[in-house]
């Protein structure tokens, strides 16, 4: 039986974090959260999260940045928006989850091979390079970077995709790639995502 001591001191808070998140456009309503739990109650993934969406909202408001950015919650959010439409205080919870994902990626706070942020980064890199996504290529890159053993586990599905003609290998790309590049370069740091944590 493992005994664990959990207490949070003031030093664990990162002052200014809640203000930073609430200053993201559309996220200021978080101030009105009454912790009713509707978001967690309606979220289909909340039963898999280490902290429920409601708990994450409480932690964000209380400036517990590290606890929030290392939670599984932000990655397990499927962006189904059920929480956002049901919240009685009209808090844009899904958008807050996105803001947290962005910061976790920027600061590189996630396990190296955790597939979800890896997928997000590979996706955005492919978009930057080609302007469009070729799904099969993206999935193969994801397997390589995150979990190459899964390639073998999914062989049956792969064959099924080939059989039904959905295994498209033609590289989708736009013509005016330079135009898109120039546009993206005017925002952010010009690069997709930050460094990976080890």
């Amino acid at each position, binding site marked *: 039986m493992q005994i664990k001591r959990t207490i949070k001191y003031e030093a664990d808070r990162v002052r200014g974090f809640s203000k930073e998140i609430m200053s993201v456009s559309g996220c200021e309503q978080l101030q009105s959260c009454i912790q009713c739990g509707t978001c967690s109650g309606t979220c*289909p993934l909340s039963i898999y999260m280490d902290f429920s969406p409601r708990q994450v909202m409480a932690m964000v408001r209380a400036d517990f940045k590290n606890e929030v950015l290392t939670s599984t919650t932000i990655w397990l959010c499927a962006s189904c928006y059920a929480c956002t439409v049901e919240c009685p205080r009209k808090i844009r919870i899904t958008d807050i989850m996105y803001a947290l994902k962005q910061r976790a990626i920027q600061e590189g706070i996630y396990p190296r091979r955790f597939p979800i942020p890896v997928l997000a980064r590979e996706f955005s890199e492919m978009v930057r390079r080609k302007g469009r996504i070729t799904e099969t290529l993206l999935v193969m890159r994801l397997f390589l970077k995150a979990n190459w053993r899964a390639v073998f586990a999914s062989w049956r599905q792969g064959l099924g995709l080939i059989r039904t003609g959905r295994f498209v290998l033609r590289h989708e790309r736009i013509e005016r790639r330079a135009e898109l590049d120039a546009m993206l370069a005017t*925002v952010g740091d010009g690069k997709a995502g930050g460094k990976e944590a080890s």
Partner: protein
Amino acid sequence: MKYSYFPGCSLKGLGRAYEESLLPVMKHLGVELVELDDWNCCGATAYMSVDEAQAAVLAARNLAIAEQTGPQDLLTPCSACYLVLNKTQHNITDFPDIKTAVHRALGTARMTYSGKTNVRHPLDVLVHDVGLDVIKEKVVRPLKGLKVAPYYGCQVVRPYSTFDDDWNPTTMDQLLATLGAEVIHYPLKTKCCGGSLTGTVPEAGLRLTYILLKEAARRGADVVATICPLCQFNLDAYHDQIERRWGPARVPTVYFTQLMGLAFGFPPRQLGLQRNFVPMKELPTERVAG
């Protein structure tokens, strides 16, 4: 009737059956679709997880092209694209910092965007612009006896849907009934299928898919009608893994446009129905006189 058409990356790849069925159905109804010139990926949920401003720019480029080339009604079948384009539309209007970033980015290509593009979903266009009466007239092979579970998924109805209710949408129900199908009561019609989590965290994502299929089967559905390429993929291509983990739940899942095509008398191969992992049962080959 003429619309700009934004297929999205998936309709050229895993979801190609959606486009394969959408185009002939629209043509049959006299709706002209002009594929958006040099459209780029909308970014879906993945790019938004990385950088908000860049994601807005990505989507805004498409909106700006549509506004410039016209028609300004942009038909967007893929749910993720529909959500992202609508969201960006709202964000550009509501949030000055995003508006500024987008305009600066568009300016590098001497493009502007003044908010005139209307992002429309095919269900919206079919039911409200074309009209159920017109569709009914084109039905030569009513889907009699076919029990359909209407599955909308999340991103079309939440949170930016302008054309249907976010808890109990009915446009597809009405459309399917017009085709002669028996629409079953399916309370999970807007529950999340798991999205991309089915591939990355299957124990969570796939279970959501399993629950949808199980309940559809329990309620006697012959087929699930869907409007999103990712939902279709999840509901169609993971039956083996689902059966291994929790038990069998094989219900064929097709695009609503494929059902429309069948009702209009098009052959299944023309509608991409052979691309299903779980095939739909053959419909009886009777035709209504005239």
